[in-house]
């Protein structure tokens, strides 16, 4: 038996794979924001970071052997009767919260892209180091 069982750490990782997924996504996003030179890649990284947190909320709402939080035979067939068991449904609240968070992340993406577009129109590039060079030259000309 001993030979077949997994080591503790492997079990820990597999049992919590959803949280590991969230953590990995977060780190990918953070890496892109910090390390990438292209502004659009940074924006993509930012969005991945936000999506990771949205997935975190979705994953804490799930239950074993539960279905989506829509009551079956909701109308007419005695919706208020004893037939409804809360344990059979996922927690709807985090999902509803994440609808709002998705709207927020889309709005953030929109603002970030709008800024990127206006930067591109002005400097004709989205590479950060090239923009900084142009900015420096601009500031030197002013002084």
């Amino acid at each position, binding site marked *: 038996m001993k030979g077949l069982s997994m080591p503790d750490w492997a079990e820990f990782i597999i049992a919590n794979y959803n949280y590991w997924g969230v953590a990995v996504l977060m780190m990918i996003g953070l890496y892109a924001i910090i390390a990438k030179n292209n502004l659009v890649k*940074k924006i993509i990284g930012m969005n991945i970071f936000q999506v990771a947190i949205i997935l975190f909320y979705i994953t804490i709402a799930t239950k074993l052997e539960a279905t989506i939080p829509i009551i079956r035979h909701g109308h007419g067939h005695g919706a208020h009767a004893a037939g409804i068991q809360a344990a059979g449904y996922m927690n709807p609240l985090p999902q509803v919260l994440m609808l709002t968070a998705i709207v927020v992340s889309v709005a*953030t993406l929109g*603002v970030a892209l709008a*800024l990127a577009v206006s930067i591109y129109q002005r400097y004709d590039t989205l590479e950060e180091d090239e923009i900084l060079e142009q900015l420096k030259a601009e500031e030197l000309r002013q002084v």
Partner: protein
Amino acid sequence: MILQLPALIIIVPLLAALGVIIAGWLRNALCFPAALAALLVTLLSAILVMGQVMHDGALIYRLGGWEPPWGISFYIDHLNGVILILVSLVALINLIATRSVVAQVFKNRLGAFYSLYLLFATGLLGIVITGDAFNLYVLLEIASLSGYALLGMGGGRARLASLHYVFMGTIGASLYLLGIGYLYIVTGSLNMLDLAALLPTVEKVSLIHVSFILCLVGLFIKMALFPLHAWLPNAYAQAPNPSASLIAPLTTKVMLYVMIRMVLTVYRPDLAFNRLPIGSLIVWLAVAAIIAGSLLAYKQTRLRRMLACIIVVEVGYMVGGFWLGNAAGMTGALLHLLNDAMMTLCIFLAAGAIATRVHADTIAGLQGLFRKMPFTMAAFVVGALAIIGVPPTCGFFSKWYLLNGGIEAGHFGFTAALIISSLVNILIFFKVMEVAYFEPFENHHHHSNGQFIQEAPLDMVVPLLATAGFLIAMGIYAHSLVTGFIEPVISPLMMGSL
């Protein structure tokens, strides 16, 4: 009507933000009066609500009549009541003071500008008034998103700086959201008062600690505490003046409020100060912020960048004072929160007024301004004295409390940092005043008659002088501010666990 006042504080500027766009389609001239009316109503409601709180104690407003743990509720006590007044007052003064500049710079986009302005105010007021942790996140993003747009409208580096701010701000807000997620896992609730009641019964304490640290780091990014401050100087220094003088005084202060609310109401001081050994670490971070910010400010040759660096220093004062964990330190932090919003408004408005007449942003370009713009410079001096901490301006009293707090806690690093940064502030501001007072005005460009006095437009000078007056009045009435608004917040804590 009186019962619905807390809702008005949010709904009036929110609806006005939409109304202003429509007004902008009809006629540009309608935008300013509409925004003015909305902020006046907001300020009035905030004052009336605060009066009610002073009379009856903390009040809970149920949005749509839903009972608190399920519905979203607004919670107003002494702590946020006074900050509501502060936010609406600063937004109102800045609106009036920047009218002519905005009309000039945003000619065809008045509707858009004022709409963003009101949305920003709505977001901040919402952050302050809400009693729901997730609702706070949404309002935080409303304020931030309109803030990014307002800051990004400037020239030069403004757009790139604003985009960097988007990245940092989003990471900060997302970490806060993650922290709230952990709270939801352990309690199943998002209402602040409900959370406060449920958290002591939670057995998995480590999850609460994780959530607390995540929230704190997120908020530290948002308030630009030292190692996480890099976005601030660029974003504020190159923004259009009317946006900078709105956002610079308010954003960091409101984020500080959120930190204080989270520590005092949600996680409870017992966890923050006794069970987690982070208080001293954060005070040292604040010390680093104060010293590094002062050096950074001293190095700057551009006026507005220098002022932006001073904000980093001020954040260090407040964070450090609060995390000292004693009555004097917390009183100092809260008093400084109120004072600093007004001081920052004063110097940024003065910088904006100077910018209407002097086009170079450098400190060296301020030659002879005392003679040319006496009223603007007088207000600037009052603001500078308040930041240095000279009595009778308000800055002295909050610094006094902070110093006492540092000495009482035996934290001499913080005490020394306060004194050093005050000295550096003296150097910085006297450098500016020396240039502006002693060096003669040189006229390179237009107006060959250099003697001609060109004060900033009257509608800019009057609010500016009013702000300077507030700085002195808040100093003179510092004692009543403390006993009226701050002691009701601090004294129950001191009776308890601390």
